[in-house]
């Protein structure tokens, strides 16, 4: 049987006593080599504590005595001998990862699974959760968020108050309800654009009014934006965007950043684009409003054609998919109009306010 040399510490002083170590079944037999009377004593294998990070250079064992005794062995063969003699003892189970010391497959498997989980959470679970949250948010809360957002967005904008009044009247007649379903604001901006803000706000950039040739086109635009509001699309979009920010600030431990997010997003919201499904939903709902109010649905088609031309003219190269998007929208709108034809009726109020807006 192999005999190893080690240093024994009794837990009372730091003095190391040289010992000889024999590995017998269930017991480490230690013999003090020097001392008033050389003595042999045993460490029960079951009472030796685990040490997760022993190495070949030095093995340290600790015994559950009172006080705790320690054994140090600086023999490269000792680690292997312990493994062979006591394969199930806790102190031979090292916690070096399998990634380094052997089969890396389990760890890689866990890692790949985890990345898949994160990806699933990111692309599916989080959008789903934010949609559910947006759909179930109380109207009052939505209005509060909207108020903060619209305040931040319009802070530095030049509001055209006369056109804002006409646009509001135009919208009220389009909708045909007595109360304000949404608040309209017309601002001076360079691009032709319009967007919906949670809490019932629609912001129109003046150039888009110039782009429209008749009230049906403007009605198409407002019906579309109103549909975004009714379906809470802008709230969903905001939530999705916030979730990314929220995760990022959690990851980087930036709590103060969270505070600024809402206000920051007010600016970003203008640039955000709804995905095609949401746009199509808004187009179809908008079309229904036009049908209910007997307004010419081709207004919406003409609006998109005008927007498409406008994008073609601009000197800044647009994102490549813009045109196909307009084309496909024009196509499915035309198909829908052909499928459900109806008799249109001229609307004098809309005509009147449209003329006022074009002045």
């Amino acid at each position: 049987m192999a005999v190893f040399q080690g240093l024994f510490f009794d837990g009372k002083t730091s003095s190391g006593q040289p010992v000889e170590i024999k590995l017998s079944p269930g017991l480490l037999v230690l013999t003090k080599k020097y001392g008033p009377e050389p003595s042999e004593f045993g460490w029960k294998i079951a009472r030796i504590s685990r040490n997760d990070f022993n190495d070949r250079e030095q093995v340290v064992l600790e015994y559950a005595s009172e006080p705790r005794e320690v054994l140090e062995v600086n023999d490269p063969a000792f680690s292997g001998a312990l493994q062979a003699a006591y394969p199930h003892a806790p102190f031979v189970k090292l916690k070096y990862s399998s990634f380094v010391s052997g089969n890396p497959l389990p760890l890689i498997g866990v890692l790949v699974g985890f990345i898949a989980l994160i990806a699933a959470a990111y692309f599916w679970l989080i959008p789903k959760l934010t949609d559910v949250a947006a759909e179930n948010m109380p109207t009052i809360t939505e209005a509060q968020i909207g108020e903060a957002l619209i305040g931040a967005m319009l802070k530095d904008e030049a509001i055209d108050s006369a056109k804002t009044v006409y646009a509001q009247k135009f919208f009220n007649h389009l909708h045909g309800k007595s109360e304000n379903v949404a608040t309209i604001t017309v601002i001076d901006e360079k691009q032709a654009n319009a967007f919906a803000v949670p809490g019932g706000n629609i912001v129109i950039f003046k150039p888009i009014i110039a782009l429209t040739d008749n009230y049906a086109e403007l009605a198409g635009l407002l019906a579309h934006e109103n549909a975004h509001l009714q379906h809470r699309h802008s709230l969903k979009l905001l939530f999705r965007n916030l979730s990314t920010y929220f995760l990022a600030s959690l990851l980087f431990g930036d709590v103060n950043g969270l505070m600024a997010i809402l206000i920051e997003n007010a600016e970003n919201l203008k640039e955000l684009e709804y995905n095609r499904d949401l746009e199509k939903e808004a187009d179809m709902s908008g079309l229904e409003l036009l049908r209910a109010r007997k307004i010419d649905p081709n207004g919406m088609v003409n609006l998109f054609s005008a927007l498409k031309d406008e994008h073609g003219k601009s000197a800044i190269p647009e994102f490549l998919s813009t045109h196909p998007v307009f084309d496909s929208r024009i196509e499915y709108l035309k198909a829908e109009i052909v499928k459900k034809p109806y008799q249109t009726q001229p609307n004098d109020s809309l005509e009147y306010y449209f003329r006022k807006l074009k002045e």
Partner: protein
Amino acid sequence: MVNNYSETSVSENYSAPEQTLEFKGKGTELFGIQLPNWVLTLVTCGLYYPWAKVEILKYVYSKTEFAGSRFKFHGTGKEMFKGFIKAIGIFAVLIGFFLFCSLSGKPELILVGMLGFYAGLGLIIPVAIHGRMRYRLSRTSWRGIHFGYTGSLKQLYIECIKGAFLTAITFGIYGSWFVVNLRKYIIGNIRFGNIRFSFDGEGGELFITHLKGYFLSVFTLGIYLFWYMRDLHFFYVNNILAEQNGRLVRLDANVTGTGYLKLIVGNVLIMVFTLGLGIPFVTVRTLNFVISNTQLIGTLDLENIEQAEADRIGATFEDVSDLLNLDLV
């Protein structure tokens, strides 16, 4: 058999190893330990963090060698978890208070929220330092002998409040003296068996070091920063004394400015090219740089360090301190 024992035979067979410090960890090993820990911490939304932390500490301690023997960390994930939960709780209350006040929109309330938040943080710091020293040192041993911390929380509070007040009214100038006094108090209360420690640096020395470091770094467009770090390293390490039965031993660092330059440039490159995954390699390089470049001037009587009564305490503030990223000693 009785005759076998004699002084000569002991020294023939067992020669006392040199009293040097060495770090034996490997980046690959630490990486292998960290990677599954990261995954588990992420999968459990951070709840696994205390266990991951314990594993890293155990690894680092067991690869740190003094005079041929390894250190050992005896803490457990469960102990650390209790501290972790309390830390999270305290932070949740503070942040909740802050958010509540800021969301009100009233300027006075926002101010109250901010002041309350920072006052709360300030009041936790001494508790965090105290708890961390008590916990971590009581769980550290070498050759079966445990470290311990004998400082009182009350005294630490007095030091902190006095220091913070003087630092505030001197526009930060007193900061160097504050740091040094804190260090004197904390290190002065570390014991290892019958060995006591002390710190004999002075605030003036630290202040001059900062002043010199700042101006030379500005004049050399930052190149002097590495030598500035070396000077701080000297100040913090070389002023630590250990006293055993009236005999004094001093720590002595022999790091160089070029050494710091290599360390930091290397670390930055590793972090950039591994997108942060190489952090275990950075840790090992840094520990190796600090530990292996520290020596002892004088010798300790390593045969006669006696175990003191071990005190058992909770892990409460271990991780409050880690969350605040306070790095003492």
